Each structure stands twice: as C-alpha cells, then as structure tokens.
C-alpha cells in the first residue's frame, strides 16, 4: 500500500473535494506557488478562478470568503501561520460563525479555515508558535485537530462539506507523518467522533494532533506497567464527550496531553467535564503548555515549553497510584 503523508493527505482531500464539488475553491497567500504545498499543482489543475491568489490582507480575504460562502460557494481559506487566525479572530468568531443565527437560519457560511502549520516553529519566536484551537471552541466554532493522514483527509473533507464554518488545525510537527493507506479507504470522518488508537483498561490518555504519536509511544513504553488507552477526540468542538465517558467508565483514570496553553485551554475543559460528569477513581491530570506560553527565538528555549513524553510517563504513574 502507498505511504501517504499528512501534508499529502491535505493536498489530496482538498483536490478530491474540488473535483467533486465545483463550488469549492481555495484562497490565501502564495497560492500560485503553493508555499505550504497544500495546494501543490492546483493552479494548473483548477485554474485561477478556483485557486485565488490573495494579497497580504487576511481580514479582507476572510470577509471575502464569508461573502462568497453566503452566496453559495465553499471557500477553503489557508493561513500560513497560526497567529493569522488571531488576526481574523473577530471575522471568524463574531461574524462568519454568527451570521446563521443572526439571520434566523436563512444564511449559511460553509467556510473552512485551514492552518496547515499550527504550533511550534523552531526558533521562529513568540509570534509564530501558538496553538489557538481552544479559543475557537470557546466561541463555538467547529474545530478539528487530526493526528494521522487518514484522519486529516477525512476531517478536511468533512470540514469542506459541512455547512458551517470549520477551523482545521494541522500541527507543523505532524505534517511529515506517513501512513500506509489504501486510497479507496479514504473517506469523510464525522465531526465530534473520537478514535481509540490503543485500547487499555487502567488509564485513559486523551491526546490530540502530533501528541497522539507521543502518547502511543509512551503507552507502548509503559506496556509492562499499565494498560493505557489512548483516546484521540480528533474534533476540538464539537467534542466526543460520549467517547470520553465510555473510556472513563472502563479506566476511571484520566491524563490529558494537550499542546495548548494551560489556563482556559482544551486540556482544562476535558478535565473539568470529566470531573463534573464522568467516572473518576483518582484525581485527573493534564499536561499542557504553561499559562500564556511564549516561545523564545532559540530552539533551546522553545522545547522547554512543549509537553513532553517524560511528563506523560510521570503523570500516568501518578494517576495509577492515586
């Protein structure tokens, strides 16, 4: 079976959707030469009316996408850097995502916001390394953060087909991950449905994005000590609360492994909801970035702020004791 990389999966999913549905188009910066490679080959394949080259005008083209979507198109807006999603935060959360309600259901805004390079960018410094996904969940914007090429394909396809705004985060750290796939098996994956990557009985580790792969390695490493279930919600919002509850019914122990900032992040939401509504036999734990994490401009500083495998090992051991 061919090896498909996460980045290629994005390219494939977007291309397949554009083949399938003429209303789908992509816009963003450096489209023509596909700087991020997500749209590699698209200018020749789909032409300039479906691959819109945009100037350095993120608020303008985000609003443009909102208008195009309300008028029947399905824009996919690419953002090269995570902070650009902060720059258009109001346009997505306070405009595009609210227009349906504000119109009493008349309007729909089927835009996909694609950030194929979320998270840490070695030594690029404080302004280029954020993971803003928790805040889109806070504002009620559908948000996904897939971990594997298959899930990236399926959730990007679903995001594009969804009639509401959806933000897609692909962490830079996972773009190179490859997977053996049968192309025929690639298919849309519903929002809000998680995935158990590894089944276990003692403790549930919730991980997303690139951290899923670290969690699986740690689970393997601890196989002798503890039976670790690795649960990947895949969608940040809506979240698969039923899937999490089912896992905790079994394990009763929870460790969350999350690359977002600590305060008011997804990790906290998972711990809070579990503590309020689910079965826990020991105090839950979360491993996150620090509060309001800002990386420096040297890799030495940056890595110190990323969640690590040793932290996960220690947390698992603690909840097993607890």
């Amino acid at each position, binding site marked *: 079976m061919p090896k498909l990389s996460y980045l290629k999966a994005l390219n494939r999913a977007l291309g397949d959707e554009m083949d399938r549905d003429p209303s789908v188009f992509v816009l963003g910066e450096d489209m023509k030469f596909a700087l991020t490679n997500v749209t590699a080959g698209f200018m020749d394949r789909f032409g300039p009316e479906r691959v819109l080259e945009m100037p350095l005008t993120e608020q303008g083209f985000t609003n443009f996408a909102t208008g195009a*979507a309300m*008028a029947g198109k399905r824009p996919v807006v690419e953002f090269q850097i995570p902070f650009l999603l902060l720059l258009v935060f109001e346009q997505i959360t306070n405009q595009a995502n609210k227009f349906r309600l*504000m*119109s*009493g259901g008349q309007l729909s805004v089927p835009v996909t916001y694609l950030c194929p390079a979320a998270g840490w960018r070695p030594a690029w410094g404080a302004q280029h390394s954020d993971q803003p996904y928790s805040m889109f969940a806070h504002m009620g914007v559908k948000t996904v953060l897939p971990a594997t090429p298959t899930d990236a394909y399926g959730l990007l396809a679903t995001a594009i087909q969804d009639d509401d705004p959806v933000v897609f985060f692909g962490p830079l750290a996972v773009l190179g991950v490859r997977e053996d796939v049968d192309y025929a098996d690639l298919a849309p994956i519903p929002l809000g449905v998680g995935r158990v990557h590894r089944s276990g009985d003692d403790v549930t580790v919730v991980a997303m994005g690139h951290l899923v792969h670290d969690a699986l390695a740690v689970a393997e490493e601890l196989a002798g000590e503890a039976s670790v279930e690795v649960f990947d919600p895949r969608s940040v919002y809506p979240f698969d609360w039923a899937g999490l509850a089912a896992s905790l019914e079994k394990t009763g122990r929870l460790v969350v492994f999350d690359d977002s900032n600590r305060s008011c992040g997804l990790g906290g939401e998972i711990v809070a909801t579990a503590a309020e509504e689910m079965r826990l036999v020991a105090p839950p734990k979360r491993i996150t970035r620090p509060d309001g994490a800002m990386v420096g401009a040297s890799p030495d500083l940056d890595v110190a702020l990323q969640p690590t495998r040793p932290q996960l090992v220690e947390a698992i051991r603690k909840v097993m004791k607890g």
Partner: protein
Amino acid sequence: MTDLAMTDSADLYRTIRFIRRFEERSVDLVTAGEIASGVHPCVGQEAIATGVCATLTEDDVVLSSHRGHGHLLAKGCDPRRVMAEMAGRVTGIDKGRGGSFHPSDLGVNVYNATGTVGHGSGIAAGIAWARGRRDVVVSFFGDGAVTQGALLEGFNLAALLKLPVVYVCENNGYATTLPVETAVAGSIVGRGEAFGIPSSTVDGQDVEVVLAAATEAVERARSGGGPSLIEFSTYRYYGHHTFELKARMKYRTEEEIARWRERDPLDIQAARVPADVRARIDAEVDAEIEDVVAFAVASARPDPVDALEYMYTDGLRARAGVAGDA
C-alpha cells in the same frame, strides 16, 4: 414599495415618505418599550436608500448597515416583517435573531448587515465574486467606516478582481459623536481613488441627483467596469441612536440641524409632486404604516426554549450552561 423599477418622481416621493414614517413610528415603539434595542433612525438620509435601490433589480444585492431600515424598505423587504424583526418577534425577517442592527432578508437579496462597522466591504466583494459577477452588490456604510482598515482591504480586493460592487458611503457628518473632519485625514473619495476606484462626492438630499449618480455606478458595474465609490453628503436629524432621546449630547448645534432640515429630502421631492397626488400617497402610506406597527406589536415573542435554535446548520446542539440540561 411594490415595483422597484418605478422611478418617477411620485414613486421616489412615496418611498422617502414611507421610510420617514416608518422611522418615526419605530421611534415611538422604542419609547413604548416594544423595540428593546433602540434604533439608529435614518431620518434625513432617506433619499440615498431610495435613489440607490431604485437602480437595482431583484437579483441585485444589498448589504446594509446599523442604520439600515431605509435600505431594507427600499430594496423591497416586507415592512411588517422588518418592524417585527426590530421588535424581536418571531414573525420578523430573521425571526427576532437579527434585530434592528443586523438584518438580512435573502428573499430580496438583502444579506447580513454585520455589526462590525466597515467589514461589509470585503463581504460584498465575496458575494459579487461568488455570484459570477452577474449581479450588482451595493454595500452601504457611513463616514465612520472609512477609518476602519478592513473597509480599505475590501476596496483593494474589489478593485483587483474588478467586481460589480457599488460602495455607498453615507457621510452624515458624524460617527456617533465624532465629526468626520476630525476622523478622516485627507478625503473619503481619495481613499477610493488610491485603489483606482472611480469615486465621487454627491448631494445625498436630492433623490433625483442620487438616482443619477447611482445609475452611473450601477451601469459601470453591470458593464464589467468594476467597483465604484459614491460619497453622499447627508445628515441625520435624530441622534446616533435613540439613547440620545434620553441623553441629549452636545456634539452638534440646533442651528446645524435646522440648516440641514432646510434641505430635507422629503420636501425636495415633495416639490416635484402635485399636491393631490401627494395627499393620496401620504394617506396610503400612513395607513400602511399603522398596519405595519399593528402587525409587529401583535406578533408573538420567541420562546426562550428556542434560544439555541439556528446556531448550526446540522442541528448540533450547544451544550447547555448546566451539566445535564438539554
């Protein structure tokens, strides 16, 4: 309000008169507590909505502003459902979810008036592009919007893509309390010209002058000539928002208001319509407006249990604020 193609003097007078009465009565409903949000009356600016929308077909698109009742009525929305929307009733054009400030009515191609001043310009460009450059899109905004960077980002995109957008700036001299001279360095039309967009400043009080200017811009759009910017000089007699009924603010003088009332769009157009015709129109309009008000006030208020309706297309239900609640 029926046939938008009708642009003879009497029809234009009728539309202005209709908007005027509609606004006056909406202020009454604010005072009566029926319109909880208050409103931004467009009294004094009616000729712009009237003249511009008279050049549009049903398929053409309007993006309104927070001072938008006139745009909606002139574009052909059902006035009863507009007033009901302002009163937050389920019979409103947006079922009470848009209100006075953010109305949309797809039935007549009135798209969402965003509350983010100045951001309609990019949305308008996207709509014009998505509709295959077939239909004209009119984006209404005020002089305050001119200082919002996103407005100019939208100008750039509309110009680059040569889109059929008519940008209509209703310069009524103030952004809330701020005089335009103290807010806008340089000029408003200069901002259009910077992007290669044909731009002009036009009297917004004489509806037939408005009509002529709008016709030229709309023709340019239809013939593939790309976007235009028209800055209409106008004035609002009422305050920024009905809160000024209570809190009188001293940012302008009574003399200034009086001076502008001398160029009242209703009077200017009235002078072109025979007295008997006017009398008939006035009577019809007054009667229709009372029916509008009665409809709005009599309509049902939304049921609180539906508060989360229409958030998502797929019926996704947001989790309630308390665990376990529906």
